[in-house]
């Protein structure tokens, strides 16, 4: 492996602007991680207009910092208030809050911070090795492979998303449909524009992401579903003892590996890996009954895993151009806006961007470690800021921010429409994540499908005769059909047991 571009990447990170934006990113990430309500996808969406004025590398360094910074911050509220700031920190609640009740909140936070740091760093190193390999493997992917890959990616993300599986797939279809609005790339026929000039170029990604993730979440939170956060007592000692560290070292090691691999899978990501890491530790433990009552491994494992996964979920995005989860879909959108199309050529054609972003994560993790151990008290104090005050500020940032993209009032109208849609979707059990992901992949999917059909001269069996696209499509069919089959089998066995009774 040629090491020069990797070293050049460090040079990119060390530029003052990039250092500054890396710091801004991780601080913002940490803040929104601490504050329940807005998740990383929503925050990154709301900040999209900010990224217009800055260099692509700088923009992505900042957005990535928000994403992995949120994984650190989410721990704090989980441990102190039994109120997870992020979905990926929910399992930390079980043991973290139990530890806090025993007066060991500092230990829990310290171990979580160290675990997060190790998990994140291990994952960056592994990413630096794996990503170029995946990218070089994917270099000869043609349109059929991309069709299959995009289909499988959308399906996997919908299948493991929160909420109803069928509803998630429906949301994805709506996203695909929205992506067709505007001029058709092949024939330049106008589709679903209703003679509206603003729609002729298609719907912008920014109002969709800002509306569905940002405004949708704010409106949803208006219905007071969070308890008022009580300000916790000050945290005494965040430095874990040597005994705590020894006890959690195994969990941190396993969490790093698990998190890395689960993060690569589409739909995997931070939430799932934290769950799996917790379950693995509980199963391995000599005395599983300790879990839920303040086992330090129960904090170390999921917190390590969610950070490792947050980092490795950049692999499919940066090497294949397929986002693995909702947040990655927003970062994908940010890259497209910057004129960079993520894909296998990225490593070789834009090495500065690729290695700049990857290497900035080392720095970001160091900054986050500093913020979560010596400075943790500062962030705990943020909890006193009331959500009722933040909400109107966020709304105004969204409404004015979306206007600045094109200086067009129509975009404000769009963002409000998608905000209402996002609220309704969350209310009715539809996850907006798959919609945004499918929207972002929609034009790529359609284009590669139509190209493939031209290559195969209309013979769709051609997809199955090519080894890679064939394998991916078989996997697609399996993922699509298996849950239905399993439900059918379960029902049959249930009715059989009923008959026996």
């Amino acid at each position, binding site marked *: 492996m040629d090491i020069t571009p990797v070293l050049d990447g460090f040079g990119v990170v060390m530029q003052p602007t990039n250092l500054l934006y890396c710091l801004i990113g991780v601080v913002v990430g940490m803040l929104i991680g601490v504050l329940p309500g807005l998740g990383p996808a929503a925050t990154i969406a709301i900040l999209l207009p900010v990224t217009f004025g800055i260099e692509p590398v700088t923009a992505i360094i900042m957005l990535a910092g928000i994403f992995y910074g949120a994984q650190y911050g989410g721990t704090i509220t989980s441990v102190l208030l039994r109120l997870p700031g992020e979905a990926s920190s929910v399992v930390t609640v079980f043991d973290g809050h139990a530890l806090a009740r025993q007066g060991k909140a500092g230990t829990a936070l310290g171990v979580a911070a160290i675990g997060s740091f190790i998990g994140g760093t291990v994952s960056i190193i592994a990413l630096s090795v794996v990503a170029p390999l995946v990218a070089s493997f994917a270099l000869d992917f043609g349109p059929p492979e991309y069709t299959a890959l995009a289909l499988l990616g959308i399906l996997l993300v919908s*299948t493991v998303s929160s909420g109803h599986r069928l509803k998630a*797939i429906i949301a994805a279809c709506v996203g695909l449909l929205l992506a067709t609005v505007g001029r058709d790339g092949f024939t330049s026929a106008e589709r679903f524009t209703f003679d509206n000039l603003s729609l002729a170029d298609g719907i912008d990604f920014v109002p969709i992401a800002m509306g569905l993730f940002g405004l949708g979440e704010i409106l949803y939170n*208006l219905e007071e579903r969070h308890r008022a956060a009580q300000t916790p007592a000050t945290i005494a000692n965040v430095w874990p003892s040597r005994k705590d560290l020894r006890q959690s070292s195994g969990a941190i090691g396993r969490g790093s590996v698990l998190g890395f691999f689960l993060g690569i899978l589409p739909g995997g990501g931070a939430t799932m890996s934290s769950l799996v890491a917790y379950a693995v530790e509980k199963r391995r433990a000599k005395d599983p009954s300790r879990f839920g009552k303040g086992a330090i491994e129960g904090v170390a494992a999921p917190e390590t895993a969610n950070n490792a996964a947050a980092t490795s979920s950049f692999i499919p995005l940066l090497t294949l151009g397929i986002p693995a989860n909702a947040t990655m879909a927003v970062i994908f959108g940010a890259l497209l806006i910057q004129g960079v199309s993520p894909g296998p050529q990225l490593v070789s054609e834009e090495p500065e961007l690729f290695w700049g972003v990857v290497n900035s994560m080392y720095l970001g993790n160091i900054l986050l470690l500093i913020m979560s151990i010596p400075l943790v008290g500062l962030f705990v104090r943020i909890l006193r800021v009331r959500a*009722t005050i933040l909400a109107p500020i966020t709304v105004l940032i969204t409404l004015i921010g979306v206007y600045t993209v094109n200086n067009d*009032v129509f975009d404000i109208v769009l963002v409000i429409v998608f905000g209402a849609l996002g609220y309704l979707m969350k209310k009715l059990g539809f996850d907006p994540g798959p919609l945004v992901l499918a929207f972002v992949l929609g034009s790529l999917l359609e284009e590669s499908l139509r190209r493939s059909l031209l290559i195969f001269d209309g013979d769709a069996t051609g997809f199955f005769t090519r080894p890679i696209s064939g394998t991916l499509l078989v996997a697609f069919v399996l993922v699509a059909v298996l849950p239905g089959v399993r439900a059918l089998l379960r029902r049959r066995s249930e009715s059989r047991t009923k008959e026996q009774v």
Partner: protein
Amino acid sequence: MTVPNGTERGSGTDDAAPQEELSISDAIHEVEALEHEYRPPAAGTLTGVLTAAAIVLLGVAALIGSSSLGIGSASEPGPGTWPMIISIVLVVLGAVLLLYARRNTDAEKFSRGSWLVLAGLASMVGFVLVIEVIGFEIPAVLLCFVWLKFLGRESWRMSVITSLAVVAGFYLVFVAALSVPIPHLF
């Protein structure tokens, strides 16, 4: 393990620990349930039927729209081919959802709190209607005030001072510092 309700959790420390036999997706749903401890009760069958019907309708409308675009053929796909495929999938999935409408447990009932959301939306619509006429400052102060005083139930003093301060800050950042061409009065 049942879906948690308020009485069951909150007392013991060992509640909600994922059980061994749970599959990953079940576990994710558990976690979601924990996250939304305070969510309102589930919506009824009617909401489920209406949702599914809306999706089928959307699918049918898109199907009509795409067929008028020219469907083309498999060897020569037209502009309507891809939208048509999605519309058909959408209609089918919407119909399946209709079958499950009675088990609509992951949808929430619209409660009194939902009016707050409508009010919030109305304030944004008002903002966008007048911004081109009178600039962003006055509507922004009003929006901020409505959200603080009526949606957030903050005190009068707090609401007035915060709204003025927030909009002043926005003015300084967007108009004075960044000179964003947003319509402004001053």
